[in-house]
């Protein structure tokens, strides 16, 4: 097989694959997301309003951020106990 034919085939393969990619990309972008999934992603604004604390996308996942605010400080507890002794 001559060398130029190799290059032609290589370029042809590349063009075919690029066309497939562009078509699939355009189709993906044109397809509307399912209902309720329009604004998926983490954002402070949306997550603070949302009640779904079980959602893995929620910044306040399982209420962990809220828990941390009221979390007891162990070092101070220990100090208090020692003081009492």
């Amino acid at each position, binding site marked *: *097989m001559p060398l130029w034919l*190799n290059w032609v*085939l*290589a370029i042809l*393969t*590349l063009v075919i*694959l*690029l066309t*497939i*990619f562009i078509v*699939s*990309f355009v*189709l*993906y972008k044109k*397809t*509307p*997301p*399912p*209902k*309720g*999934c329009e604004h*998926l*992603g983490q954002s402070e604004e949306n997550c603070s309003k949302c009640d779904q604390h079980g959602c*893995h*996308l929620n910044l306040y*996942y399982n209420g*962990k951020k809220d828990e941390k605010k009221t979390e007891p400080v*162990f070092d101070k507890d220990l100090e208090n106990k020692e003081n009492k002794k």
Partner: protein
Amino acid sequence: MSTAMTPYIVTFLLAILTGTLADNVILSRFYGICSFIGVGNKVKSAVSMGVAVSFVIILSSLICWPIYYFILTPLNIPFMDTLTYILVIASLVQVVGLFIKKYSPTLYKSFGIYLPLITTNCAVLGVVQSNTDTGISLGQSMGANFGMSMANAIGTSLGFVLVIFIFACIRERLEDADSPKPFRGVAIALVTAAIMAMAFMGLMGIGS
């Protein structure tokens, strides 16, 4: 089952075991570290990402192996392999995402936002590349080579899911732990990853 098939099945299973534990894609080959660190902070999202990556790894291995041996090699253009794999993986991710977007809102909700990220996950490209890089050894049939490639893909996928799941579990516990301030966040995550890599080193030799 015939006795002639037994060595093939044992080799297939051993290849899966090796890919999962001894030659783990993240902790031994260091592929896919970005998603491992980035998404591995919550168990649910880590598992979603793991499943999505596994799906794409297996599917792209299934497609890229025949492309290499039945299109690129006969046309004498095997040097186009990496470029071809990148475009195949990118197209595949778009097509899979398209179907999920259209037909499965539940799946879209669980790993819809992670799916486009897989295009840039080097674990997928690494596995596909290593499947064809080894070549067909003397006396090995095309079918056996394809089988081993698929075993490598399945093992790698299982290893990815396993490690990202364990890592996310540890990180969730570490969030509540009273770790020193300079270690909090990514620093303690990297220390955890290093300890996990050392633990997995103990499994080397399995399957050899």
